């Protein structure tokens, strides 16, 4: 298979702090991989290692079937959006965008033209002659994005490229990215903390935790078959409910055969039915309304907490007594000791 990008047992460290631990990742050509993980997990570091801005302490990096571990950044043919934008303060927007082309000897005219087109794409065509210091946060980010998109590298490295955009713009940009990706078949590594983005955009998602890859899989796999409680809780908001499997709330339909060891049962807020007549009793602690949806925070008798999503229109009152229910089909089982997914 032709690989777009392969990290093979890559470790990296800042001074003495090890940040990445034997990360294995492979992104096939034309694939869009989203790296998801909590703050400080090492997402940016992964990109920096790929770009060649940080040396690896172990392992190899291959881009487009070429071992680039010892190549300098410029030789790796990647383009990158920095989390901090890294715009050139002295260049105008159009000059910033055209920079990568111009230093690669694209004729100035052409470079400017393509820069203008890229600016159009990210919706900052009106700002071409401003300098970064005169832009709002989101505008800067869009310029950084345009600068990355204007080229056609082997790999795009996007470090939270949409974090400062409003939802509408973000949806639009997301669609643009996806379209671009589909159009030019570019290999992309996209770091985000926004799971909607991850789920919508990704061909596959890699979940990073403390510098280790926790799970790699399609959005569907990540959502439906999280490999660990960490992934399960990290993806989805509010996070998946986790209770002891033999505990206060057990689905009432046919149980699968369970082993001996202690397990945990997990189910997402969306899977909780509140209007059950039977089921586990609980009290409503607090209700959050988000548009058409509401999230009810419930305490079970045993002191456990559960969140349920309900339509905003039919949300329970705070303090109300409710009965809740889930189905085995919606439930996930994990080993209580290791947090790994239980495979019956």
């Amino acid at each position: 298979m032709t690989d777009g990008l392969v990290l093979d047992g890559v470790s990296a460290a800042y001074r003495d702090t090890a940040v990445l631990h034997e990360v294995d990742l492979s992104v096939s050509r034309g694939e869009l991989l989203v790296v998801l993980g909590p703050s400080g997990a090492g997402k940016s570091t992964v990109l920096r290692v790929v770009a060649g801005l940080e040396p690896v302490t172990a392992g190899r990096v291959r881009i487009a079937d070429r071992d680039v571990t010892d190549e300098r950044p410029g030789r790796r043919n990647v383009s990158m959006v920095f989390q901090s934008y890294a715009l050139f303060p002295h260049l105008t927007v159009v000059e910033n965008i055209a920079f990568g082309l111009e230093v690669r000897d694209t004729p100035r005219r052409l470079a400017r033209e393509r820069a203008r087109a890229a600016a159009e794409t990210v919706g900052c065509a009106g700002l071409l002659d401003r300098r970064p210091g005169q832009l709002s946060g989101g505008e800067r980010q869009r310029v950084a994005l345009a600068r990355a998109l204007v080229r056609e590298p082997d790999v795009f490295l996007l470090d939270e490229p949409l974090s400062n955009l409003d939802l509408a713009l973000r949806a639009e940009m997301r669609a643009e990215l996806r379209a671009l990706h589909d159009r030019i078949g570019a290999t992309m590594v996209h770091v985000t903390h926004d799971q909607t983005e991850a789920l919508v955009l990704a061909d596959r998602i890699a979940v990073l935790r403390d510098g280790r890859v926790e799970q790699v899989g399609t959005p569907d796999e990540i959502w439906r078959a999280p490999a660990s409680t960490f992934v399960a809780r990290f993806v989805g908001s509010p996070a998946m409910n986790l209770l002891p499997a033999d505990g206060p709330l057990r689905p009432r339909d046919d149980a699968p055969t369970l082993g001996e060891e202690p397990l945990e049962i997990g189910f997402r807020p969306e899977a909780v039915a509140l209007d059950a007549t039977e089921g586990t009793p609980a009290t409503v602690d607090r209700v959050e309304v988000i548009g058409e949806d509401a999230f009810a925070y419930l305490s079970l008798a045993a002191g456990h907490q559960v969140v349920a999503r309900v339509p905003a229109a039919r949300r329970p009152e705070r303090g109300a007594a409710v009965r809740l229910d889930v189905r085995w089909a919606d439930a996930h089982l994990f080993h209580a000791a290791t947090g790994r997914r239980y495979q019956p």
Partner: protein
Amino acid sequence: MPPLLLLVSGSLTEPGLPPSPTPQLVPDPLSTTGYERALDLGGLLRASLNSVLVAVVAVPLSVLVASLAGFALTRIAPRATAVVVAASLVALMVPATALLVPRFAIFRLLGLTDTLVPLIAPALLGTSPLYVLVYYLAFRALPADLYDACLVEDLSPLRTWWRVALPLVRPVTAGLTALTFVLTWSNFLDPLIYVYDRDLFTLPLALRSLSLLDPTNFPVFLAGAVIATVPALVVFALAQRRFLHHDDRPEG
């Protein structure tokens, strides 16, 4: 670097000998007579003391004035800044010789001739307006948000300067301190004009009189030059360390 080695080597040559017709890096015979006579004839010890005295007062004062002024320039109205910057540029253009006589009159009016004060006085303008401008550019290059953050925290400009701006331009300070030191240390015209008392002579003046020794006494003079250079080197080395060991920079 080679000139410096030659300087040291020359200073260790026995004075009074006819010049050697062939190059010698290690003089033969090796002799410290040059140093003894330099100290003896030129009053170098006393002069060093005076130079140190001047430097100890003038250098910190000068750096202080320069950095404060540079910082103030980033804070005041742009128009005022432009005026001061222009005035500083003009001041840079004035040759030192044009200032000697009027300054002498000023110092005399203030009763300060024949004291070390006129040698310290240039500290009032940061030794050179250039240093003020360098500070100004350095402070201006810091992210504006940092200053805004200080404003929000109700830091007086003085404290913003001290707590935030100054630490962030430490390489500049280190460099300018070294330069100010050298400029002060090697100031030659000012003491020539403003200081009469031999007991107030600074090193360059003492060196100047050594320089009139006849050429066979070159080692004596070179020894003097070495003595005058060493403190400056030490300051440079220290500043260079600060320079190197400072890596916190505005990021992102």
